[in-house]
């Protein structure tokens, strides 16, 4: 079980890393945050439509809002990007499971 | 309000086996609530069983007794129909008493 969960986290961790890798390095502005947050929020809403949101995405979105409130836009943008990456990973999961779930099914 | 005390006292010959379950949080004082604040200790300190006015079992408990505590013991000398009086008092001074028939 432990190995299984590690593999799974590893897979999604990799996806997260790819998405998050595109984060900007320059100091971020409120506009950057709003843009990043809107993208993350849209992705999370899509995950919601697919009934497959992740707790970590919600946590990252909350973290982004909190950082933005204290005008820490570097942290806010980073968190929003992470949230977007997580949300996209959950969308990827939900979409690939459209068919993949059958692999586990016990059939007559 | 229903009693917090449940007792099954069953006589088998001269020996009566007593099982008790008590509804009580038994908060240890070491657990935090959702807000991250410690829930104050709240636990039964003393539980007493009396038969014919004589204590047949006395439990002194600390915070490590499980929530809704359970204890089982057996004593001699009771007959079916005898009364068993059970009382507890906790660290806040709350108390409950109930009487049960030996079956």
């Amino acid at each position, binding site marked *: 079980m432990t190995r299984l969960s590690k593999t799974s986290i590893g897979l999604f961790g990799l996806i997260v890393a790819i998405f998050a890798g595109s984060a900007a390095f320059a100091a971020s502005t409120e506009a950057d945050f709003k843009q990043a947050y809107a993208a993350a929020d849209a992705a999370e809403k899509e995950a919601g439509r697919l009934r497959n949101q992740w707790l970590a995405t919600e946590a990252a979105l909350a973290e982004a809002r909190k950082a933005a409130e204290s005008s820490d836009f570097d942290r806010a943008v980073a968190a929003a990007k992470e949230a977007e990456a997580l949300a996209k990973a959950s969308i990827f999961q939900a979409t690939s499971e459209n068919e993949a779930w059958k692999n586990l099914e016990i059939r007559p | 309000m229903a009693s917090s*005390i449940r007792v099954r006292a069953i006589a088998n010959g001269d020996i009566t086996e007593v099982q008790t379950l008590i509804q009580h949080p038994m908060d240890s004082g*070491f657990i935090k609530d959702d807000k991250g604040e410690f829930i104050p200790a709240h636990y039964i300190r003393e539980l007493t069983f*009396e038969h014919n006015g004589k204590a047949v079992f006395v439990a002194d408990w600390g915070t490590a007794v499980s929530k809704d505590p359970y204890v*089982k013991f*057996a004593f001699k000398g009771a007959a079916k129909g005898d009364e068993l009086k059970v009382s507890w008092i906790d660290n806040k*001074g709350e108390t409950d008493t109930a*009487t049960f028939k030996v079956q």
Partner: protein
Amino acid sequence: MTTFDGDLPVTRRLVLRGAGSVALAGLGIAGLGIASFHAPEALAAANDKYPEDAFKQKDGTEAIKRLYGRPAEPSDKIKLDAPEIAENGAVVPISVSTSLTDITSIAFVVPENPNALAAYYKIPQGTLPSIANRLKMAKTSNIIVIVESGGKLFSATKEVKVTVGGCGG
């Protein structure tokens, strides 16, 4: 059945608890019925008071010392029954019985808990030296049971593995 009116009888034991006003405050929480309070005679009748000091000890050996004033020696005449692995540290069923005679008390000690002494049972004459109870365990620990027999102290020990702790007991 529940009896209480806040007018606590002034016995030494209850005064020691400083129960009076706290008891009233606590009433609302417990939702206990209000009627007249009869002191449980047995509480007043028992000679020894609640071993407050022993229950506060962090260390198992110290708790036993405060409770009995001396250490116990291991005995194979005590049968201590506890699970190998606790299914949940919040509720660990533990029972003990013994072929030793003239038993006056039995105590359960969990050294790895925040407070080591878990329970102390007084065994009057005519009560069998056999007890089952459910204890909390914060983590993997020995369970030590102390049996007071003919004024002497004997013990048995068993380790119980705890993977989900009872969050301190």
